C-alpha cells in the first residue's frame, strides 16, 4: 500500500493516464481492441517522435516553436526531390539534412547570439514556412513512385513502420537523456547554466545540439506524415507544435528547464490520445469536447503537479 502510494506520487501522470485507460476500457465499446490500439499508436507516432526530442530541448531550457515549420517544410523538400529524381532514399536524406540545417540555424541564433528561444524560433518559423512555399511552388505535392508511401505504411508484426520508428525515436531520446554524457549536460544546462559552464559544460554547444536533434526529429515526423497521407502541402500552420508541446507539458516536464523525462512525455501523449479517441468513440459533440478536454487536462496536470510537489 505504502509503495503503491509512493509510486502514484512519483508517477502522477502515468497514474492519471492509466485511470483514463481503465475508465475507457470498461465503459467504451471498441476502445480495448487490438485494432484501436494499433490505430492510436499509428496516430500518435509523429507527435511522439517530435515530442521526445522537444522534451530534451525543453529540459535544456529552451522553447522551439519552429517544430511546426520544419514539420511542414521538410516533407515538401522530400517530395520535391522524389518527384525530380524518383529516389526515396535521396528524398529522405534531403529532408533530414534540411531539418538538421534548420535546427542548426535555430541553435546558432539561440545559443550563440543569445536571443530568447521563443521569439527566435517564432521568427525562424516564418522563414522555414517560406522555404516550404518556395520548394513546393505553393502547390500540394504527391509522391510519384510507389515506395514513398511505404515509408510510413509498411506493416511489421502488425504495427505500421511509422509506429516502429516512433518507438525507436523514443528509445533513442530516452537513452540520450538518461544514459549519456550529453544527457547529463542537458539537465545541467537547463537546471543552472552558469553552474554548468563552471563545471566545464559547453553550454552553447549542448543547446545547439538539442535544436539540431529536435529539428531532425521533426523532419522525420514530417516525412512519415506525408508518406501516411500520400501528400504534403505548404501552410503556416502551428497546430503540430501545439500538440507536441501539449504532450510534453501535460507529461510534466517543466518549461523552466532542468527537469523532465521522455517517459513523462510518452504518458502525456497517450493521455491526450486516449482522451480524443474516447471522445470520438463516444461521438461527443466537438463543442462539448473542447470544454471537457480543457477541464480534464486541468485536472490531469493538477494531479501531476500536486504529486510532483509532494514526492520530493
Amino acid at each position, binding site marked *: 500500500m505504502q509503495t503503491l502510494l509512493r509510486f502514484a506520487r512519483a508517477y502522477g501522470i502515468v497514474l492519471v493516464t492509466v485511470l483514463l485507460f481503465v475508465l475507457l476500457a470498461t465503459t467504451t*465499446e*471498441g*476502445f480495448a*481492441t487490438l*485494432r*484501436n490500439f494499433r*490505430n492510436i499508436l*499509428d*496516430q500518435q507516432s509523429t507527435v511522439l517522435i517530435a515530442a521526445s526530442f522537444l522534451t530534451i530541448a525543453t529540459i535544456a531550457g529552451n522553447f522551439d516553436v519552429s517544430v511546426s515549420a520544419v514539420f511542414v517544410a521538410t516533407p515538401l523538400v522530400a517530395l520535391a526531390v522524389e518527384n525530380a529524381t524518383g529516389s526515396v532514399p535521396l528524398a529522405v536524406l534531403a529532408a533530414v539534412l534540411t531539418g538538421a540545417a534548420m535546427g542548426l540555424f535555430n541553435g546558432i541564433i539561440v545559443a550563440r547570439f543569445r536571443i530568447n528561444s521563443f521569439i527566435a524560433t517564432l521568427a525562424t518559423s516564418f522563414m522555414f*514556412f517560406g522555404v*516550404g*512555399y518556395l520548394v513546393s511552388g*505553393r*502547390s*500540394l*505535392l*504527391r509522391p510519384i513512385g510507389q515506395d514513398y508511401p511505404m515509408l510510413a*505504411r509498411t506493416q511489421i508484426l502488425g504495427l505500421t513502420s511509422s509506429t516502429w520508428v516512433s518507438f525507436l525515436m523514443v528509445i533513442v531520446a530516452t537513452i540520450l537523456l538518461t544514459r549519456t554524457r550529453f544527457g547529463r549536460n542537458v539537465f545541467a544546462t537547463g537546471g543552472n547554466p552558469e553552474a554548468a559552464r563552471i563545471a566545464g559544460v559547453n553550454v552553447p554547444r549542448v543547446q545547439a545540439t538539442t535544436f539540431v536533434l529536435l529539428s531532425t526529429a521533426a523532419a522525420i515526423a514530417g516525412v512519415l*506524415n506525408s508518406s*501516411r*497521407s*500520400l*501528400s*504534403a*502541402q*505548404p*501552410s*503556416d*500552420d502551428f*497546430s503540430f507544435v501545439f500538440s507536441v508541446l501539449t504532450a510534453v507539458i501535460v507529461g510534466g516536464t517543466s518549461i523552466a528547464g532542468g527537469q523532465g523525462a521522455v517517459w513523462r512525455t510518452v504518458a502525456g501523449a497517450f493521455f491526450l490520445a486516449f482522451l480524443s*479517441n474516447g471522445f*470520438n*468513440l463516444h*461521438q461527443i*459533440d*466537438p*463543442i462539448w469536447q473542447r470544454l471537457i478536454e480543457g477541464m480534464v487536462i486541468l485536472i490531469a496536470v493538477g494531479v501531476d503537479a500536486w504529486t510532483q510537489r509532494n514526492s520530493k
Partner: protein
Amino acid sequence: RADDIQVAYLSASSANTWLAASAVEMQKVAAANGIKITEFDAQFDPAKQTAQMQDVIASGKYKGIVFVALTGAGAIPDVQAALDAGMQVVGLNQVIGADLTTSDPQVKGMAASAMAAPYRSGERLGKLAIKACEGIDPCSVVYIFGIKGIPLDVAMRQGFDDTITAHANISVVAEGEGKYLGPDGGIAATQDILQLNKPFQVMVGADQSIQGAAIALKDAGMAPGSVKLIGLGGSAPALAGVADGSWYGDVFGAPRDEGRLAMQAMVDALNGKMDGGIDPLTSVPDEGLITKDNVSKFTAQWNG
C-alpha cells in the same frame, strides 16, 4: 509597366493550395488585360486582413480589389470602405455577408462574387448521397466536418440535411472532424469511427478528409468501394478515385475557373459592367455532380 491598371488581391492565405490555383488563372486574365495584380497574404489572420484592406485603400493606387474574406459578415465594413473609396470589389471563394446560401454579392455596390455558396455545396453533397443510397435501406452515412461549429461548416451541413431529409432511408450515424489540414484529420477520424462498430455505407466530407478516409479504410482491410466515398472539391485524387471506383462521387470544385471568372468580372467592372453572383459550377457539366458515369467530362483544377 507603369501604365498598368493596379488591382489588389487580398488572399486569405498565400499558402492555401486552392487559392494558389485561382491566382494562376487570375494572373493570366490580368496580363491579357493590362492589369497588374499585387497579392496580400492575410495568413488566415482576420486582423491582418483588415489592416491590409486599409493599407490598400490608403495607398490610393488600386482601382479594384479581389477579396477572399476571412470573416464573412465581419468583412462588410472593409468592403464598404473600399467601395466608398471608389474601388471595384469582387469577392472570391468566400461569402462576404451573413447569408451562406447564395453566391450573390451582399454588399450594395460590389461588382461580383465568384464562389460556390457553402449551403449549395452541402446540397450538392446531399444529392450525391441520395444517389449513393438509392436502393439501400437503411442507408447509414458518416459526415466528416471540417471544423464543427464554425458558420461555414454549419451552413454546409444545413444544406446537406435539408436535402436528405425527405429520404427516410438515409440517416447520419456518425460524425468526425477533418480539421482542413490535409488528410491526417480524415485518417484519424475514420479510424476512430470504424471502432464504433456501427456499419455505414456512405461517407461524405471535403476531399482532403475523404482522401484520409480512403487511406484509413484501405488500411483497415476494406475493399475499395465497399463504403461509398463522396468528396467535395474536385481535386486530382478525388477524380482519380471516382474514375477507378474507389470513390463513389465528388462535388466538383473549380479553383481555376473561379479565379478566371473573378478576374474577368473585375475587368468587366472596371469597364462599368457588374456581373453579380457567379457560381462556377453552373457552367460545368451536370452542375459538378461527378460519378463514375460522367467523370471523364471533368479535369481536376488542383491537386488537393
